[in-house]
């Protein structure tokens, strides 16, 4: 019997070493590459026809485009247009990554905190740099709440700074924890069904219960996969909005 968390083990598929660092090609990296390839193929292939009346493939690609386009313009406004390609790529990468992870025998790279944290850290650094370039030292007014009593200001600055540094952590932990918990839960229920069946005799029909739960949970996980890609992307938009339009 496999442990429910065994699905998250990183296995090196190809052992590589560079300057003493282990840079082995792992199953996680394989699925990241697959995600990039699949999403590129999907979007290129879907938009190849450029039909006036879109077919199923083109309609889905256009929906994704419009969804993110609306998200950027409603959350960041026109100043956000230059960042649209990045935000769209981010969304597609996470969506495809989360969805691919739901296929049996595949690997969910978004269930690794390293992956999500690196994404969030790049966004955090990028957004901070954008704010500094756009506003210079005025950027620091970020940390002083307007209209706060003078006595409280030093105290509030510390809180605001901490709350700024919380961003990449909460952003990455949310995605990672959702994927980790969801996939563990799926495996636990699947394991339960198998164990009850294995008990045999009068107990065996009882396996239908965890199995039914598993069907429902799989549906829920599809929702979570899309939702978390959405939440990650919309939060990126909001951070970008904060950086472009300081309060």
């Amino acid at each position, binding site marked *: 019997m496999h442990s429910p968390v065994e699905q998250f083990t990183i296995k090196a598929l190809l052992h590589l070493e560079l300057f003493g660092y282990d840079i082995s090609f792992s199953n996680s990296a394989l699925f990241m590459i697959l995600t990039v390839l699949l999403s590129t193929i999907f979007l290129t292939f879907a938009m190849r026809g450029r039909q006036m009346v879109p077919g199923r493939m083109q309609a889905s690609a256009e929906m994704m485009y419009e969804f993110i386009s609306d998200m950027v313009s409603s*959350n960041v*406004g*026109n100043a956000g247009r230059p960042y649209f390609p990045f935000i769209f790529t981010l969304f597609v990468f996470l969506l495809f990554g989360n969805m691919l992870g739901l296929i049996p025998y595949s690997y969910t790279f978004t269930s690794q905190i390293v992956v999500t944290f690196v994404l969030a850290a790049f966004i955090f650094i990028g957004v901070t740099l954008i704010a500094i370039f756009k506003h210079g030292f005025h950027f620091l007014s970020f940390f002083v709440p307007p209209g706060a009593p003078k006595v409280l200001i030093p105290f509030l600055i510390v809180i605001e700074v*901490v709350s700024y540094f919380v961003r990449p952590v909460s952003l990455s*932990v949310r995605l990672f924890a959702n994927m980790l918990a969801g996939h563990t839960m799926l495996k636990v229920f699947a394991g339960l069904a198998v164990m009850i069946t294995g008990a045999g005799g009068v107990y065996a029909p009882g396996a239908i219960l965890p199995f039914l739960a598993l069907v429902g949970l799989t549906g829920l996980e599809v929702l979570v996969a899309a*939702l978390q890609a959405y939440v990650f992307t919309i939060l990126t938009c909001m951070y970008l909005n904060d950086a472009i339009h300081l309060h």
Partner: protein
Amino acid sequence: MNIVSDKAKPDKQGKREHGKTDVDLKTRIAKAEHDFTNPAKGKRSRAELPADALALVGRIATELVAGTVVGTFIGWLLDQWLGTIPLFMVILFFLGTLAGMMNIWRMATGQGLKLGYLENKQSDDQKSETDDDKKG
């Protein structure tokens, strides 16, 4: 934008028959460009999912945990640097928790993630943005 070029196609074909569609196309392009640069305020955007409550629940938990963890970690870093363990760690543990709670309060009151909170003094064009912030 795609929509503009897509709409242009039937018009080109139609021109042979009518001739006045050329003007029609121009007004339509102008309208599309206007809509693009001035997105309608208060228009319900498609960038929303119905599962807001679910997303909100996840955010409250992570915000609280992340606040505490990040605060404590910053405190620990300061302590390592100044050699004052556990002074800053303890102080920032509480401040981090406070920051987490404040983030939740901001989120729940519809301030979105705007740092620097307090008064709800926003310009009109930001109001529609904060409506979306709530949903995140």
